């Protein structure tokens, strides 16, 4: 059960890799797909590990990523991330 959920604005990303490197639970990896500027934005590879600490959001120089905590009572299992 994931405690948090990552959301990414791929068009802002410049693929510096800070979020991938410093995520404490290694939730992210750089994708092989491109955004319109030719960068490889990160994508979520282990959504179940996300704790919602938002360290990725604090490190992001491009304001492109943030993580939010999932409220356990209100989490909707049908939505992505809250598995």
């Amino acid at each position, binding site marked *: 059960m994931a405690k948090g*959920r990552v*959301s*990414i*604005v*791929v*068009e*802002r990303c*410049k*693929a*510096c*890799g*800070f979020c*991938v*490197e*410093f995520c404490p639970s290694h939730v992210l*990896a*750089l*994708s*092989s*797909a*491109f*955004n*319109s*500027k030719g*960068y*490889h*934005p990160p*994508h*979520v*590879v282990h959504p179940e590990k996300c704790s919602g600490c*938002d*360290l990725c*959001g*604090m*490190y*992001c*120089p*491009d*304001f492109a*990523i*943030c993580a*939010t905590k999932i409220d356990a009572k209100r989490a909707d299992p049908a939505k*992505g*991330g809250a598995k």
Partner: protein
Amino acid sequence: MPEILNILDNDLGKNLNNDDFNDDDVQNPVEPFLRSDRVPHIWCPGCGIGTTVNSFARALLESKIDLRSLALVSGIGCTGRVAGYVKLDSFHTTHGRAIPFATGLKLANPKLNVVVYSGDGDLSAIGGNHLIHAARRNIDLKVICVNNLIYAMTGGQTAPTTPDHSTTSTNPYGVFEPSFNLPHLVEAAGAVYVARWTMFHVRQLTRAISEAFHKKGFSFIEVISPCPTLYQRRNKLGDGLDAMKDYKAKSKVRNGAPTSEVGMTMTGEIIVGKFVDRERPDYQTMMRAQYADSLGERFVEQSEMVCS
């Protein structure tokens, strides 16, 4: 740069758009502080200035400052662009003159919280004199100095903060002049709050900025930030991510360390922490005290004479 994983093999070569990964109902907590129409910004991939803006916005959130009482002034350079990206009252001044502009702003409207957000070249080179005199007078400004160790926007020339033996475009055989130790400089000049963090220390930086907001007087926060395009590349130090790993490995937290010992070298350890936190009357307090003393009854407090 981390290895690009081919997990999305079927996505190879595909152009992404925001709908692929994004949850529209989640908003970045710093979004209200940004002029979203101007993002993505011009800073290079791996540059740390965006991260410092991120920490600054989070410090504003934490310290619950009234944004209508806040003004941000920046000079010229990569960091000078911050004034154009934040959704605050902001002004992008001429080169080196961020502190004089901010001084006038603060004196004309003492109720404002004035933040000076600029780079090392702007604040310590062309604006160096203004920096030391603002610290000497203890004007109530919060100065955030993003130190990327080089003049980045103009092409990587040697700055007063460039460490010994590094290579720049104007010193292709190595820098031989001693560099400025900014915390030592501003402490000697009279600043009441002096801290240094690297952009690896996002939480500490956020806390330092919030603390500076509650401090009356000249506060100076130096943020060490990588310049992957000019400094890192020319000195074969890798990209922005390598710089971050370097900061993680080499920085040493020493709160209250004597600032004479915190000078930067190219490959040595980086001493970070809160170095100075002291009390001194600020410029306006001293001015009022002096006038009340010498004019006596004739001194009339003009606190209402402010622009609104």
